[in-house]
């Protein structure tokens, strides 16, 4: 039985005899030598990930101005940073958008610009006090001008991530990138077998105080990440590192079209191979890691899972759902993840990076809870008009006109004999037909492709559909497509005016 300690490994780093490999290399070594042989052979495995990590940002201390100011609000290149701490500390978050450039530029880009050594415009306002009389300031500064600049990321290194696809008939712009209609593509994230947390899923070596590679700097794990969900293999970490030691090779601002900005973070955790159990787990392969393919066309918290696939399948460029072959591509960069793992491997070999022993454990039991919502979101069925008139497709246009006038409504759902929705006619369709002296049946003028909502949908979904398709009413249908009511933009605006 091989047993090593972190001190022994550090001694090997010191005398240059340490054997370090990347997690991908380790997979092959474990396959050939077995866990026991691998544990004897290898001292450290370097993992790697490089992807969009929205829950990232940096604490900056600007130093005091003269006369001094207690910043109440502060902007860097027109991106607001949170200044609700002391006088000249601020936290710039990756997803905050520029007030002048919108989604093109945000906090992630400010961080990249600072790391690149570029000058950044600072603007701040304050209410003025006896001790901090100043009310506003504008200046430009670079990373070397600020005192501390520490990246502190509440949630990084997601163990794996869900795959996004879209079964609707229109393109969706999401934080996973553009999702083409009718399952036109699927986008994944995460480096699979290189993933730091998949190489030590029991948190045997990874803990609070573990020294890591963060964007080129030597950083630390400071605790479990927000939304840490270890029992579903969705663990996350909270990490920190000195911005002044980072390199733009490993940290990049990014914009996701019609979604917003984020930060691409390169992160590597070294796993000390203390025994063969640890060695065995670092032998993990892409084929061993599965994740869910979710349908992002359902705008709810629980999106339907369409399939379960492995990272091996995802990386092959295509997955199959039902009978359909779907092209995949990644939002995170495997190429960069490898570069991250290789860079840390080289640093350890050269004696530039020593391993640390954790000072505290990361929980393996934390549960990720949904939000407690007290307001109670109104549902479509609470707001819709029920008992509405419908019409059959073979009724004459004239008769439809009479009914619309008599009923005083604008929309008439068209239903088959068993009550299922087959189309819709509006007052406008009918007046147009009458004006053009068109005679015939309703089915000749009705719209067949009807956008609908379900009675249990929250009204926000109805509102978004009305806006998206630029229409003024939606028939409400049950699971069998039987019409049970209608919801109009008027219903919604009345509700909003009434203030729920």
């Amino acid at each position: 039985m091989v047993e090593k300690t972190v001190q022994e490994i550090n001694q090997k780093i010191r005398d240059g005899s340490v054997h370090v490999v990347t997690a991908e290399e380790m997979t092959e070594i474990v396959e050939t030598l077995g866990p026991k042989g691998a544990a004897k052979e290898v001292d450290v495995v370097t993992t790697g990930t490089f992807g969009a990590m929205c829950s990232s940002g940096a604490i900056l201390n600007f130093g005091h101005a003269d006369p001094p100011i207690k910043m109440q609000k502060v902007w860097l290149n027109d991106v607001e940073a949170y200044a609700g701490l002391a006088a000249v500390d601020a936290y710039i978050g990756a997803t905050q958008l520029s007030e002048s450039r919108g989604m093109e530029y945000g906090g992630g880009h400010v961080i990249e610009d600072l790391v690149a050594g570029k000058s950044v415009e600072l603007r701040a306002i304050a209410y003025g006090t006896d001790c901090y009389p100043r009310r506003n300031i504008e200046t430009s500064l670079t990373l070397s001008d600020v005192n501390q600049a520490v990246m502190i990321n509440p949630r990084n290194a997601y163990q794996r991530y869900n795959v996004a696809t879209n079964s609707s008939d229109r393109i969706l712009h999401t934080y996973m990138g553009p999702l083409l209609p009718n399952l036109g593509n699927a986008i994944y994230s995460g480096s699979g077998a290189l993933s730091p947390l998949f190489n030590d899923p029991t948190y045997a070596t990874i803990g609070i105080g573990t020294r890591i590679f963060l964007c080129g700097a030597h950083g630390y794990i400071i605790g479990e990440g927000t939304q840490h969900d270890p029992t579903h293999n969705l663990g996350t970490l909270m990490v920190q590192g000195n911005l002044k030691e980072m390199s733009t090779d490993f940290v990049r601002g990014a914009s996701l079209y019609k979604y917003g900005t984020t930060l691409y973070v390169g992160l590597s955790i070294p796993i000390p191979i203390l025994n063969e159990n640890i060695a065995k787990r670092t032998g993990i392969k892409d084929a061993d890691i599965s994740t869910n393919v979710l349908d992002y066309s359902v705008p709810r918290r629980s999106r339907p899972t369409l399939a379960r696939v492995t990272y091996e399948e995802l990386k092959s460029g295509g997955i199959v759902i039902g009978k359909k072959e779907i092209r995949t591509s990644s939002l995170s960069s495997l190429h960069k993840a490898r570069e991250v793992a290789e860079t840390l491997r080289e640093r350890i070999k050269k004696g530039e990076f020593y391993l640390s022993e954790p000072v505290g454990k990361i929980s393996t039991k934390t549960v990720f809870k949904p939000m407690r919502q007290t307001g109670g979101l109104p549902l479509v069925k609470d707001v819709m008009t029920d008992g509405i008139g419908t019409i059959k497709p073979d009724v004459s246009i004239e008769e439809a006109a009479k009914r619309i006038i008599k009923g005083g409504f604008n929309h008439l759902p068209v239903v088959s004999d068993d009550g299922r929705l087959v189309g819709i006619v509006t007052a406008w369709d009918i007046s147009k037909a009458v004006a053009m002296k068109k005679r015939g049946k309703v089915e000749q003028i009705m719209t067949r492709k009807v956008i609908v909502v379900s009675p249990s949908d929250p009204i926000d979904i109805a509102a978004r559909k009305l806006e998206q398709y630029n229409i003024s009413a939606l028939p409400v249908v049950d699971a069998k497509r039987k019409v049970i009511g209608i919801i109009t933009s008027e219903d919604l605006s009345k509700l909003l005016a009434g203030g729920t």
Partner: protein
Amino acid sequence: MKMLLHFNPQIIKKPLIAEVVLETGVLVNINKATIDTAGGKLIINVPDKDAKKVIKSFKSRGVDVVTLEKPIIMIDEECVHCGACISVCPTNVFKYEADGSVSVDYKECIQCGACITACPHNALKLSE
């Protein structure tokens, strides 16, 4: 080879493509066309060996021709090789290489623009 043709408003009404096809006997494939008051812009694709003939024929009719060696430009300093551009491209211009980097097969690009907005790093642009 791909080419970008500019028509000025005076000649836009003439059946120029048809004339060129008849004159040269080369089958011209139209990838993209936009026409407005400022004239017309067309991206066409012709076999490499016939490119010279076709260019000459268009030029003799007053059409401005720019050959597109690289219809799509990948800016190396910005690209992080994520691959977000891969699955949105209708003509499979991008692909992962064995080392995980993303390569570009320029000649397949029809300048549809889908990848431009898909790239999170502003690393792609269409050549004009």
